[in-house]
């Protein structure tokens, strides 16, 4: 009797420990819930770009490549000039020019990672190679990345790039100069070098207020009198003011709900404590066990009749 009791107790202990481990694994991240409209933490840093100030000098592109040790993309520049067409595996930051068809109007846009408040890439990344780091910078850790490229599928801004031409490929995207500069109490290379102040660095709350002040100061100057990035995809840590429509300069029209919220609102309930799989296992298991027992009870008679062993 005592031996069976101790065995039972031991079993319970094992099950309890296993449950704690799996539960821990599940809830450690499930605790970071995905509200539909995430609120920026007070220490969230930001980049604020106003394309009415940008002169398209591309100093930020050079500074970015220098700070991140990126090779120039010379595929179009006769082997001499850094002339990327878009963000690519050699370009984390780019200034692009939009020209109104047939018209005089034009506008610049600076593209780089938006550092979403609730990034879809981080939600999808299987081993957490991409993570929301200190101050909200979205960074990439090479030792955790298996190269599945789910981040590229998930990102609504088409930002992460993959080194298709490398045997040891990396995910290339703006990381807010996290290791290179933020950690040393320096602002990112692009904002530091910008000669006109078209892109500036600061706390997200401060920069958002500043952007709204500019809108109030000159109503009608900016498209829709609103800040792109305040609410897009749940809000981003890069903010934009533009003289032309955001879609025209390549900033996609997105809802205000975080993509991570949309993708996990059902599964986070189903997989909480692995509840649905456990319920399914118990339910299916009990039915299967009943049917199995009947199968086994009928087996000797069946084997005797046919003279053949039962097949599974």
């Amino acid at each position, binding site marked *: 009797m005592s031996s069976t009791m101790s065995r039972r107790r031991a079993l319970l202990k094992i099950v309890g420990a296993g449950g704690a481990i799996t539960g821990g694994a599940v809830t450690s991240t499930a605790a970071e819930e995905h509200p539909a409209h995430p609120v920026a933490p007070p220490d969230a840093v930001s980049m604020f770009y106003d394309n009415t100030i940008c002169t398209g000098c591309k100093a930020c592109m050079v500074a970015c490549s220098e700070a991140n040790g990126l090779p120039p993309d010379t595929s179009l520049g006769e082997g001499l000039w850094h002339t990327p067409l878009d963000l690519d595996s050699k370009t984390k930051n780019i200034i692009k020019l939009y020209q109104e068809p047939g018209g005089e109007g034009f506008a610049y846009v600076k593209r780089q990672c938006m550092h979403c408040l609730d990034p879809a890439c981080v*939600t999808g990344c299987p081993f957490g190679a991409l993570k929301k780091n200190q101050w909200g910078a979205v960074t990439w850790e090479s030792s955790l990345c298996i190269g599945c490229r789910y981040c590229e599928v998930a990102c609504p801004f088409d930002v992460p790039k993959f080194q*298709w031409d490398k045997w040891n490929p990396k995910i290339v995207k703006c990381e807010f100069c996290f290791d290179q500069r933020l950690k040393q109490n320096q602002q990112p290379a692009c904002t530091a070098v910008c000669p006109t102040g078209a892109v500036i660095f600061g706390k997200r709350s401060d920069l958002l207020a500043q952007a709204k002040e500019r809108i109030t100061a000159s109503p009608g100057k900016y498209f829709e009198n609103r800040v792109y990035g305040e609410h897009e995809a749940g809000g981003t840590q890069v903010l934009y003011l533009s003289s032309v429509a955001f879609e025209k300069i*390549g900033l996609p029209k997105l809802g205000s709900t975080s993509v*991570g919220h949309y993708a996990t609102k059902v599964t986070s309930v189903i*997989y909480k404590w692995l509840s649905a799989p456990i319920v399914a296992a118990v339910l299916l298991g009990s039915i299967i066990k009943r049917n199995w027992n009947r199968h086994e009870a009928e087996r000797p008679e069946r084997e005797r009749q*046919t003279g053949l062993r039962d097949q*599974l």
Partner: protein
Amino acid sequence: MSAHDTTGSTLVNHWQRGVPVYLEPVVTPTLLFFAALAGLGLVLAMVRLFSPLGPFSGMNDAYAWGVWKTFNVMTLTALGSGPLAVGMAAWVFNRQKLHVVMRTALISGFLFYATGLVALGFDVGRPWNFWNILLPWRWNAESAMLEIAVCMPLYCAVFLAFENVPMVLERFYYTGSDATKAFLVRWAPRLRRLYPFVITGAYVLPLMHQSSLGGLLLLAGNKIHPLWQTPFLPLLYLLAAGLCGLGFVTFLLLMACLRYSRALDLDVLGELGNLLSWACFLFLAVQFGDLIRRGQLRTAFALDKMSLLFLFETALILVPAVALRSRTVRVTPRSLLNMAALACLGGLFYRFVPTTIAYAPARNAVYFPALPELLMTVGYIALGIVGFALAVKYFAVLPGDIADWNYMFKLVRPSRQAPGSEGETPWPASLSTR
């Protein structure tokens, strides 16, 4: 047990147990052809080990997933869901007569999953970091990709493999030495004791990862056309796996029996057709219920490119759903084969389209698989075909009746006295070596 012949048709033959294909050469020109394709694919896979993904595939930053993921894994494992669909019908919903076709489902399902996982292994860019899977505290538990990365290999390598073990052991039992026999007889009861628990896992795990394959696409948000992008994607992917699983087992049984001149049991096949029809209806009910819920019904009938594609895909599922309600259609091998093929095609379309045709990344970009990429995709499929062709000859996979089984063993005895006809009759041949 099922010894009642109601139709009196000459086609009716009561499937009672798996019987190996015998009196057929193992190596045929067709087999060699597929083996060559598989070999080419595997050689290219070896080259891929030393080559970056770029020149090898047509993938790019806008279409970061190519056919290895979207077709070999996300689409073809639906066809490989026979063990889930037929298994649940047999063991959970107690459709007893389906037990006899389980082995066909199991071996084909295993081959689809195994080749899909091989495809995945060569698709990821940094496979050496996959060992992180062993450290659960590094798991991002909310990632559908993680769920698939854990669940799919575990299912294929442990649960599905275990389900396939009995047919391999059975061969050892009939071909092995007395010591092997005694060993197997001693161990069989222990395996049997595990069996109900293993098959429970073998149904829970694919319920999880087949839905997660649809769950993957949720994060792609509005890159996927609203006819396909819905919070119901996981459920619809799972239901598509169910209908593809039932459809493909039906299709495969008919094709294999045709190829190896095996008599059909239309009672069993009719039951599969019946379940397939309901699976199609269930899928369509959820799909259209969801369209109505999201107010996208008008989009479905807008008759533009995407709407026509959607309606075509729906028709591929609706036609077999309706047609298979007729008993005549279900027990006519030709029409059953056609309807099963249509249902499979519809299910495959549903699983493939949101990842490719209905997937519109932010930038203008095109993706078409590069030649080596395509050859690898074809190679994996050919590998599965070779595996199945060998399995039906070496193991008791395809269903037949007991007379068939006994006749095969009658053939064994003469060949024991006169060896030399090896390779023609697998089991008798191997028995003769004893």
